């Protein structure tokens, strides 16, 4: 066991640094910069049962110290993932997290069943995507609907179930507790915050869907607060994310109680972000004589 080894919902990760869903393809895209096998885990692009072409129009734009996206869960579908996607991910050597979105309860359950055929380590249930018209975030807005979908998926999946919460929920603590009670093995948060941008020259919203998801360093203080609140509210492990771009950012989340962190937007600004965070955490442990990074977990 090294200083960074982390157990998440029964799965051993080399370190607590995970590539965030939707920002790292299926694990190979950043290979030109570093071996993805050094990562604790990789959460793949969000899948939906039958796949999707995603949204039309502009899909990403920059905001101050952040960005917005309206990808709309473009993905090749669960079947394709079972056959190919999961193998590509497995070949990286990092723990494989399958991120699953859906438009209806039935979609989620059906997809989870099919995914039992896939070679993955953790199923991350995305009930927080703000960029699809039906379902998506709607499931994560309040405890009751969240609980429903978690129970149903938990009943069919053979994998540890991590549920990804929306910062747009009415009461994220209530949702977290509901999800825990419904049998989730872990919680991850935050997905993107619902935002808007207007092109004042064209006098139109930038995005066809009008609203889109905000991520990146700009949202980190909000994400950290929510992660801290949820860590205090539940007993299951929490994976924190939202704006992490340096190892000190990661430390803040771990001190706030996160077992592991995910890194998304910052990978775009600098593809070396995650290897640097891992190095930074390793050095931090050595300099502070920590046998394992978990020693500072939740000290706040």
């Amino acid at each position, binding site marked *: 066991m090294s200083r960074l080894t982390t157990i998440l919902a029964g799965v051993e990760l080399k370190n607590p640094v995970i590539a965030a869903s*939707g*920002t*790292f*393809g299926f694990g190979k*895209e*950043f290979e*030109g910069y570093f071996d993805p096998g050094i990562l604790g885990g990789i959460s793949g*692009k969000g899948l939906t049962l039958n796949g999707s*072409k*995603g949204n*039309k*129009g*502009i*899909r*990403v*734009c*920059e905001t*101050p*110290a*952040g*960005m917005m*996206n309206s*990808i709309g869960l*473009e993905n090749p579908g669960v079947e394709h993932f079972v056959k190919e996607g999961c193998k590509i991910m497995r070949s990286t050597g990092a723990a494989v997290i399958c991120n699953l979105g859906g438009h209806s309860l039935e979609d989620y359950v059906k997809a989870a069943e099919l995914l039992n055929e896939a070679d993955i380590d953790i199923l991350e249930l995305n009930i927080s995507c703000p960029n699809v018209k039906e379902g998506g975030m709607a499931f994560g807005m309040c405890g009751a609907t969240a609980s429903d979908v978690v129970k149903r998926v938990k009943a069919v999946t053979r994998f540890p179930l991590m549920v990804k919460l929306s910062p747009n929920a009415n009461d994220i603590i209530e949702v977290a507790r509901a999800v825990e009670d419904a049998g989730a093995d872990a919680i991850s948060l935050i997905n993107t915050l619902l935002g808007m941008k207007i092109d004042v020259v064209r006098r139109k919203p930038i995005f066809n869907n009008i609203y889109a998801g905000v991520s*990146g*360093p*700009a949202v980190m203080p909000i994400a950290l607060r929510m992660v801290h609140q949820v860590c205090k509210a539940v007993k299951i492990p929490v994976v924190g994310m939202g704006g992490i*771009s340096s190892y000190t950012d990661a430390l803040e989340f771990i001190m706030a109680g996160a077992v592991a962190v995910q890194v998304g*937007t910052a*990978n*775009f*600004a*600098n*593809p070396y972000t995650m290897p640097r965070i891992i190095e930074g955490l390793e050095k931090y442990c050595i300099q502070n004589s920590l046998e394992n990074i978990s020693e500072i977990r939740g000290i706040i």
Partner: protein
Amino acid sequence: MPVILQNSHVSPEVCLMTIKGLTGKAGQFYMLRPTKVLDPLLGRPISIHDCVDGNCSFLYRIAGKGTSLMSELRAGDTIEAYGPYGNGFEPVDSDIRLIGGGIGIAPLYFLARTQKALYPNRVIEAYLGFVEKPFMVQYFRAVADFVYVRVGGYITSDVPFEENVVNYACGPVPMMKAAKEEAEKKGSTLYLSLEAHMACGVGACLGCTCPTVSGNKRVCKDGPVFLASEVCFE
């Protein structure tokens, strides 16, 4: 971090920057980040304008926040540069014609220069359209056999899309749409270098997809150069 060798205006709105130690082929691009801080956050996709002795130059128009900061950097400063990204222009064995609109001429120069060096006997024509004052035209004159310049209006309406010449166009979307239509009418081969808002540049985020006849393609990874016949403009 890559060091800037030179960065200067070629017109009030357009600059030429050379960065040390970068390589790539014509049609590829880099994501350039002119700051060490978190705003602006994302790299700016900028095509390779030329590549000599392991240094790349970039021709860019000051469009907004990022390119404006870029224009203030000076020789000796460092810049984050990730790449080379994208497929680049497909080499062909025929005469070629470059159709550039405004700053869209940037990647075409590199193609012209390298093709001329490799195949001195092939004919290279350049049709360059500008809204106002032309820039960099002398560069094209030095490597192309024929340079046609138009100020105002649509450069595409002046291009004879014959069959035996392969066309490469880069410029504003309306220009590229027009080029595609003309080329299709005349049965002429046309490659387009597309633009899209990008976040990652490596094919990971799906932020830059464009619809094609064979489904969504990522401009950053599967492109930016596509056969016009494949592209479905929205």
